[in-house]
């Protein structure tokens, strides 16, 4: 899908800050960022790409059941995640590794899911409101909307104080927009005027199916039919992702209802490690997107502001150490205990769980350790 003239881009592909009319209203958000903020954006993206490669390798080595690479989508994720405020709730799909990291999640918790150690793995309440991954496409859009309805009911938004007013951001992809649950989430969000941003990463491929099969119009226009304003951004531009998300989240938390952002980006890697993109997409397209790489672009911008080699070398080392530590801890993950089968199926006591757990324990014990 071609970019439209409305696409918000703050950094050109070669890293030059844009000042045209489309960019102008977002530049104050960029101006408010400190040098350290900008360095952090770079650090987030580089670390993510490095551990993403490490996890992909771990899967290839038989250590993970699956890994969905985020290579290429770092700017869309890092910018939007850095735009959230501490009190916000984040409902990811299953590829938002850097969003989790930025919210304080230990990436090893994602590894437990992909290694088959857990079906969830973390507590949103102790991970800065970063909710569980959802592998069934689009389901989380309704959970996010329901959560945002609850924020409205509680009066914890639209008080006029952006430092405390709560909002929700939900991540999903171009394939998920075809799911009924996403459309139903638009309906409920519009009807209940939820404080919520729908953040769509259009990475152009739903496994092997191009976005043209999902939609014949730019996807940011779709929400408008539901009464939800939409905006399209260059998703490989971390500044655009940050500034547009910041603005839309703050509008949503101010009481003006839900918003949608379509970030145009590209899945440089495979859909997951089970996928073979060479069967369905061409190298010319891939190389075109690699030329618009989000990290290269942002590095050029930072260098143009005077950032030197030392910083970039330091971040590369940090990313390498981060990944080596992740690998070490992945290989040390213990197999869950048998009892875990039964322990949390229900919140309250359940006779069937009790009986089956005891039976299994007795059965295992009957081997006397010689199974």
């Amino acid at each position, binding site marked *: 899908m071609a970019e439209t003239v409305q696409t918000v881009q703050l950094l050109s592909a070669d890293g030059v800050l844009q000042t045209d009319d489309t960019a102008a209203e977002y530049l104050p958000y960029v101006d408010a960022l400190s040098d350290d903020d900008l360095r952090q954006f770079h650090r987030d993206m580089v670390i993510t790409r490095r551990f993403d490669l490490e996890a992909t390798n771990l899967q290839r080595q038989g250590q993970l059941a699956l890994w969905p690479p985020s290579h290429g989508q770092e700017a869309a994720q890092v910018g939007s995640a850095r735009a959230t405020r501490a009190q916000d709730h984040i409902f990811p799909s299953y590829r938002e590794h850097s969003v989790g990291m930025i919210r304080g999640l230990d990436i090893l918790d994602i590894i437990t899911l992909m290694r088959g150690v857990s079906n969830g793995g973390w507590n949103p309440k102790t991970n800065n409101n970063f909710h569980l991954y959802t592998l069934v496409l689009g389901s989380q859009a309704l959970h996010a909307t329901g959560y945002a309805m*609850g924020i409205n*009911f509680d009066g914890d938004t639209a008080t006029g104080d952006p430092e405390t007013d709560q909002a929700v951001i939900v991540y999903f992809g171009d394939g998920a927009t075809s799911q009924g649950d996403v459309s139903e989430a638009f309906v409920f969000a519009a009807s209940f005027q939820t404080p919520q941003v729908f953040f769509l990463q259009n990475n152009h491929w739903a496994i092997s199916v191009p976005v043209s099969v999902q939609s014949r119009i730019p996807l940011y226009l779709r929400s408008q039919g539901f009464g939800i304003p939409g905006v399209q951004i260059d998703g490989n531009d971390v500044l655009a992702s940050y500034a547009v998300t910041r603005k839309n989240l703050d509008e949503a938390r101010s009481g003006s209802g839900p918003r949608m952002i379509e970030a145009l980006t590209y899945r440089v890697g495979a859909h997951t490690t089970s996928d073979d993109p060479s069967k369905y997409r061409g190298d010319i397209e891939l190389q075109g997107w690699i030329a618009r790489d989000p990290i290269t672009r942002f590095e050029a911008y930072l260098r143009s502001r005077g950032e030197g080699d030392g910083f970039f070398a330091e971040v590369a080392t940090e990313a390498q150490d981060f990944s080596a530590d992740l690998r070490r801890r992945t290989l040390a993950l213990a197999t869950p205990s048998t009892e875990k089968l039964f322990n949390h199926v229900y919140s309250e006591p359940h006779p069937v769980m009790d009986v089956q757990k005891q039976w299994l324990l007795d059965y295992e014990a009957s081997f006397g350790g010689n199974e």
Partner: protein
Amino acid sequence: MSTETTSTGTTTTETNTGLTSTDTASTEPANPKAETAEPTSTEIRELAFGKALNAGLRMALGDNDQVLLMGEDIGPLGGVFRVTEGLQEEFGTKRVFDTPLAESGIVGTAIGLAMRGYRPVCEIQFDGFIFPAFDQITTQLAKMTSRHEGQVSMPVVIRVPYGGHIGAVEHHQESPEAYFAHTPGLRLVSPSTPNDAYWMIQEAISSNDPVLFFEPKSRYWNKGPVDFSASAAPLHSSRVVRTGTEVTVVGHGAMVTVLLQAAEVAATEGTSLEVIDLRSLSPIDYAPIIASVQKTGRLVVASEAPGFVSISSEIAATVTEKAFYSLEAPVLRVTAYDTPFPPAKLETTYLPDADRVLEAVDRALAY
């Protein structure tokens, strides 16, 4: 439940054993103008099943500010069966609200509300309309506590008017319980009396697990005593509602009425049936059933649902495993046929009635 069976074996829990005529009921019947339930704590009153549910919902809304009612047409209209009548007026549009017409959306947003700390009670308008929400119920709601390793609870109740006997058009008379009973993480109950309706809805709402609450819609207009002072029986207990000695018959919801009718007829023919109301479909409380079968040696299980891979099948298998040496005959099932719910003019043929229950009783006794 204080009104158990009497020593003569007749029930005191059901005063009306008639089922609604198939010729006159519409699919969106209004309740007959009935008294508003304003219970006091020591009172026993006759209430229609639907009114008892309404009173139970009112109690739950009053007890806990986190309880929400949500669904289609439940606000000013009070639901197509008027079960929520007057509740929006009393508790406001933030506690009792109409949703867009989208079942997956209702359940999906209820999950988000439960994550936020609310206790949503969703109304699905009719049994046959629940399937757009099937994914959110079975894949999301049922697994959410497990996926969070117990760190998040899902106190969501889904009310489902279900079953036949009202002469409605297609998709309005089904019994889809087994689809959900097959799903770990869900609890399923179905009251058969106004007293149970009043108490069980409150117990379901106070559960921290998701509960599918199957309401036998043909019973909405039937009156029975509601004891507002008695503490509720455990939500997941089954109960002997008529004692007998020769054959145990088990069912739930509107089928309990059919079983009691069958027991009356059998008694006139000199056969003594013990009737058990399941009340809970997941988990199933087997202790009263096993105890009864150990006494009678014979079991007939009846339901309005097709029999293949059904709750009736599950009970037959489990009782065979647990009480094999007590059985004098195979456990027999009396169910709907394994066909779609038929046009309403054929529903009395499709749904088990007292005669079909008695035919199975005769077969059990012939062994």
